[in-house]
Each structure stands twice: as C-alpha cells, then as structure tokens.
C-alpha cells in the first residue's frame, strides 16, 4: 500500500509537467509509466469499496485531464460523473490513469474495473467486454484550417488526409468510407498537425472539439456536427453484477438531474441530451445500446494483412533512408572528431554526445513538435527518417573513428612515401581498410536501427509497431498479430544481416583463400 501511494504520488507529480508544457515531449514516457503503474496496481486495492476506473488523462479534456490550475489532481466532466456514480453505488471512486489505445486489454487484465472515457459501444468491442447503459450522446465535428474553403463536409475529404483519434467511432467511420486518415494519441497532436498543414482536416467527438479546437483562431468547424453515437461504460465480460450496479447508478444520476448539472457546467448539455434523457427521467424506458451504434466494423484479416504490408514498406523506407543519412553523415563526423581543428573536434564531440546521450524518442518528438516553432514542419515519416538518421550518424561516427584509428600509422607513411597526398592516402588506402573493420559493428547497428523505427509510432507514423498496436487493439488479437508482426520484422532484418555477413566474409576470405591456394600448391 505504501508503494501504491508512492506510485500514485509520483504519477500525479509527473503528469503536471505535461499539462503545462506545449511541447508534449514528456508524454509517451509518462504514458508508458502510467501503464506500468496500472500493471503493478494491486488488484485488491481498496477492497469492495473502490470503483477503479480507467481513462487516458493525457490530452483528455474535457473528459478527464490534469487540472492546469492545480496539477496535483484530475478534473473533467467524466471525473465528476464517476464521482457521482460512485456515491450512488456507495463506493469510492479511484482513478487509474491509463492509455486510450490499450484501455480494453488493461480492463481485461484487471488493471481497473470499468472504462469511463467516452467509450463507444462498437461491435468488435462487444465481443470483448460488456457495456453499461449509455450516459451521453455524442456527435462528430469536422475541423479545417480557417483559410481552407475546399472542405465543407466529410464528403469533401475523399482524397485528403484526415486526422482523428485511433480506435474511435470517428476512425471507424473514416475507415468505412474509404477516407485516408491518420490516427493520433490525443486531440492536441491532431489539431497541431492540422495547423501545420501536415493533414487537411480533423474529425473529433464534439466534446473534445469544443475544448481544443473551438477557441483556436487558426481553425474553424466545417459544417454542422454529424452522426450520433453513445458513450457507455465498459466492463469485463464476467462482471454482470457490477454492470447491474453501474446501470442503476447511471439511471439514478440521470433521473435526479445530477448528470444534467455536470454536463451544463461543462457546456455539454444540448438537444441530443434532452431527447436522450427524457424517457429515463419520465421513468418510461432506458435507451438500448443497439439503437444508436453508428459504426461497426468487424475485423477483416485480409485488410489487416494489407495494412501490415504497407506498414512494413514504410518501416523499410524509413530504415533505408536513415541508414543512408547515418552512413554518409557519420564519416565527416568521425574524421572531424579525429583529425579536425579544435573547434571542429568540439562540435563533432558535442553532436555525438548529444545524440547518444538523449533518447531517440525525445529527439523525434522534438523534431516533430518542436521544430515547427522555427518554421520547419516535416511530415511524420520524414521526421522519423531524418531523426533516426541523425541519431545513428552519431553511432556510426564512433564505429568509423575506431576503425580509422585501428589502421597502423605505417599505412599512412607508406602512402606518403609513395607521393600520395593526405586526401588520396585516406581515400585509397585508409578508408577501404577501415571499412572492413567497421562492417560487423555497422551491420549490428543497422539491424537495431531497423527495430528502432518503431519509435516512430510516437509521432503517428503508420509503421509496423503502430500498425500492431492499432490492429491488435481493434481486434483483441494481440498474440496472433504479435507473431505476425515479429515475422514481418524478421523477414526484413534477417536477409539484411545475411547480406552483410556475406559481404564481410568475402572481404575477409580474399586473403585467406590465397593462403589455402598457396599451401595446396606447395
């Protein structure tokens, strides 16, 4: 329990920086940390009296998010609603910060008891978890840049890139209509990329749109809100008793007007809510989940394979591109650090220490979210390519430098004494020998670069790791898809390792073969 309290405290402490920082640099590590916390959360914590609820508080306004005025606590309309529900159930609400994409698996593994996070009752989720009665009717809102007159409704987006949250009703709608879309972990990132022209429009649930986009002078809503869907509370399949308890609590807070008060306070009360609550408050009926379900996409394996293949192509592209940067840029860095004048040596050393000493994830987030402040807004795939390239150039330069320094001084002197200039000696005599020495560690680095492309998921690049997360979340097939994705990675990295080993052997054996020949002849 002491550990548990400490972890909660730590969590609250680390989350407060995120809310205030516009750069979002620290988010994913913290998110990971939250997931880890959820993992180690004692299942029995709080006993019978606790209602442990999971939601993603990062960029989570107005559902549940860190209070900017008091970063030690969470606020949001759903936070207030869960408190009201818990009171109605005679329990104590206990918030478990989690990650949106993995809410369902986290619920299933017992990290918390209910999901309350604007969850839509979709067909594929229905196979994995139970739904409570609905508590809110949401609509979707399309947002574009203020100066963009091309897009008036979702129908104008057929050939444009649309941003949305992953694994939501909005993303399913886009998928169903064949509109190209990119998924984000939170609304902030999506609207920022819209501003930076990385995407052309954003579709978001009205509550989030109202909070994050309505006040942004560079953006405007395109057309009225459309479609209607439900928010429900998610529960484990075998938790029917808790579902009954939750359902009656929802009815109670609707009936006595508590929910109306909360929604009004947050500016979320509208005609749709009036219509929805009327029969319940008249005591006549509760809304059936099925009536409102807007978009149900069942998992399509053929399409999943196709998407994985495309993601693999993106992964290969990023890996190869950043390899080229690393190989090319690594050499001047190595030579500069090795033989350059003092200022160049200092620069190269600083470069290497910076890129080796900070996590590549942080570097990518900086390039993606920080650089636009200087007017450089690269698309995600290019950011990943350049970021990984710059990072690995630091590693390659050290491999090169070690290899170059391993060439005996006598090789230089022999070249000089034959009248070669330093440049010629370097190019024709030193470099080819150093290359052989560098090849094995280079191969090693490139296999690991290959896997490191997976950090690109943090900046919404659709590569293999992102694909795995999304498809597995959508289908619940973590095991099968995991094996499949691993097979994809291996199918790409093994041939590369094999190729490099072959090259290595050819270079090394050239001398050895001659010895064998010679001895055979003797």
């Amino acid at each position: 329990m002491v550990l548990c309290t400490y972890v909660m405290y730590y969590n609250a402490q680390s989350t407060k920086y995120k809310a205030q920082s516009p750069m979002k640099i620290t988010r994913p590590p913290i998110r990971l940390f939250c997931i880890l916390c959820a993992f180690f959360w004692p299942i029995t914590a709080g006993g019978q009296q606790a209602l442990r609820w999971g939601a993603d508080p990062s960029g989570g306004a107005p559902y549940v998010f860190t209070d900017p005025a008091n970063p030690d606590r969470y606020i949001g309309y759903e936070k207030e609603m869960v408190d009201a529900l818990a009171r109605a159930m005679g329990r104590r609400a206990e918030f478990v910060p989690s990650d949106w994409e993995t809410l369902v698996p986290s619920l299933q593994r017992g990290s918390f008891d209910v999901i309350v996070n604007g969850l839509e009752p979709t067909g594929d989720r229905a196979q994995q978890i139970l739904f409570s009665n609905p508590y809110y009717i949401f609509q979707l809102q399309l947002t574009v840049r203020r100066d963009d007159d091309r897009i008036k409704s979702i129908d104008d987006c057929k050939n444009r890139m649309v941003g949305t949250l992953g694994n939501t009703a909005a993303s399913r709608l886009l998928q169903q209509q064949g509109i190209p879309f990119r998924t984000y972990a939170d609304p902030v990132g999506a609207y920022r990329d819209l501003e930076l022209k990385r995407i052309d429009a954003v579709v978001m649930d009205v509550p989030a749109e109202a909070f994050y986009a309505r006040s942004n002078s560079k953006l405007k809503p395109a057309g009225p809100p459309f479609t209607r869907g439900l928010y429900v509370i998610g529960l484990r399949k075998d938790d029917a008793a808790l579902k009954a308890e939750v359902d009656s609590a929802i009815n109670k807070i609707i009936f006595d007007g508590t929910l109306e008060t909360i929604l009004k306070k947050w500016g979320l009360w509208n005609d749709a809510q009036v219509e929805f609550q009327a029969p319940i408050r008249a005591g006549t009926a509760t809304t059936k989940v099925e009536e409102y379900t807007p978009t149900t996409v069942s998992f399509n394996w053929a399409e999943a394979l196709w998407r994985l293949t495309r993601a693999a192509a993106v992964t290969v592209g990023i890996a190869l591109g950043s390899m080229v940067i690393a190989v090319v840029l690594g050499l001047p860095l190595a030579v500069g650090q090795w033989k350059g004048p003092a200022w160049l040596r200092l620069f190269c050393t600083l470069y290497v220490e910076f890129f080796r000493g900070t996590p590549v994830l942080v570097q990518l987030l900086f390039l993606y979210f920080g650089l636009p402040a200087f007017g450089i807004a690269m698309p995600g795939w290019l950011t990943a390519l350049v970021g990984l390239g710059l990072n690995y150039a630091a590693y390659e330069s050290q491999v090169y430098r070690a290899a170059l320094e391993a060439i005996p001084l006598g090789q230089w002197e022999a070249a000089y004494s034959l009248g070669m200039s330093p440049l010629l000696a370097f190019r024709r005599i030193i470099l080819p020998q150093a290359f052989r020495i560098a090849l094995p560690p280079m191969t090693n680095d490139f296999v690991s670069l290959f896997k490191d492309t997976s950090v690109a998921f943090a900046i919404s690049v659709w590569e293999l790791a992102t694909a795995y997360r999304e498809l597995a979340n959508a289908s619940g097939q973590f095991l099968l898809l995991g094996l499949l994705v691993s097979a994809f990675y291996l199918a790409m990295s093994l041939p590369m390792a094999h190729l490099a080993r072959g090259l290595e052997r050819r270079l090394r054996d050239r001398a050895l073969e001659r010895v064998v020949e010679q001895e055979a002849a003797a």
Partner: protein
Amino acid sequence: MIRVTGLRKRFGDNEILKGIDFEVPPQTVLGVIGASGSGKSTLLRCLNGLETINGGTIECDNVRLDASLSHSDYRRRVRDLRLKVGTVFQHFYLFPHLSVVGNIIEAPVQVLRTPKKKAETEAYELLESVGMKQAARRYPGSLSGGEQQRVAIARALAMHPALLLLDEPTSALDPRRINSLRALLRTFVDRGHTMIIISHSMRFLSGVADNVLFMDGGLVVEHGPTDEVMNSPKDARTKDFLTQAE
C-alpha cells in the same frame, strides 16, 4: 645523387641529428650503421620527408629541401622529394586490401597518372626482376616476410625514384634469403639505381655497400669506402662498434 648538408632534427629539447653532412654518388650504395639511438632511423625519416627537418638541406636530383623554406613551400617541396626518394620500410607496410600487382600500380596510377595498362606491364616487369611474378594476383596477407619485402621493393621502384632507402632490410630474413637479397640489390645498382641502406648487419653491408657511414650521438663519426671503414677504422667509437657487432 643525394647531398645532405648540416641536417638537424630535434624532438622538443632533444636534438637527435646534430648537423649531418654526406653525399651519395649515383649508382652507389651507402650503408648507414650505428647503435640504436644513434639517429640513423631519424635520418632515414628525414630523407623521405616523414619528419620535418629543423636545419640544413637535403638535395636529391634537382629537388632541394631547405629547413628555412616557408611552411607552404616546404610542404610542396616535401611532395617533390618523396617522388624522388623511394622507401622500403622495415615492416614493409604493404596495403593489405590490394593484391600484389594492385600494391605496385596504386601510386603510379593515382599519383603519376600512368595509364593502368602501362602501369601493369611495368609492374609485371618489376615483379619478374624481384622474382615474384607468380604472386602477382595474391594478397599481402598470404606472403612470407621475404616475399613481402620483394613486393615492397618493386612497389618503391615502380615510382622510378632517384634514390631507394631501405630500413633494416635483413631483420625479417634467414641467412639464405639475406644472400639472395644482397644479390638482388646488386643487380639493381648495376642497372643504375642509387641506395641508402640502414642496417645492423656488417656482413650484409660489406657485400653490398660501396661506402659506409658510421653514426653516433647524432653525428657522422666516420664515412668512407666500405673496406676502409671495416678493416681500418680511424675512430675509437667505430672500432668499438665493429668489434661488438660481429
């Protein structure tokens, strides 16, 4: 062919060469002897421009390297000097990533811009003359010490140097090979080459050097025809060295 006057070299406060003067006439071999630390290796490194000289001049063919030259002139002149002086290092330093013939044509093709075909023809002739033609396509890693030395000699001669320097050429050889090396070097002298050979082995030098120069403490102690220096040394230090040597 080469004339050295007042040559000085120091490392920090430590003066290794304290004013060396000598001359090597064309088509002759000068043997340089002396104890370790006498400065003979430094002398060799000065002659092929690997060390910057602090005083005096080195004249080879029509290239004159002078310690008083400006930095940029000096650097240019060193390049010229290196084209005139070929070096066979004690440890040969063949290029391991190139075949034997590749080692030999590398500098002619890259530095002198000799057409590759012509350079290869010349390389095969040189390999023939050092008795290594059959190994042309092999790599240095598979050659014995003696074979590597012959390739290194061919590599140096491929640049048509006016002067050939050899540093301790006998250190890697057994007695039988020493004899054949002596014969080989003599044939090159007969064809018009000039050489300076640094060696510990008096027996080797007596068969190949026309003149011998004995160094001690960074100075030339004795310099004269091989027989004279060997058989009737004038200086006590030379006598000492010769009796201790062999």
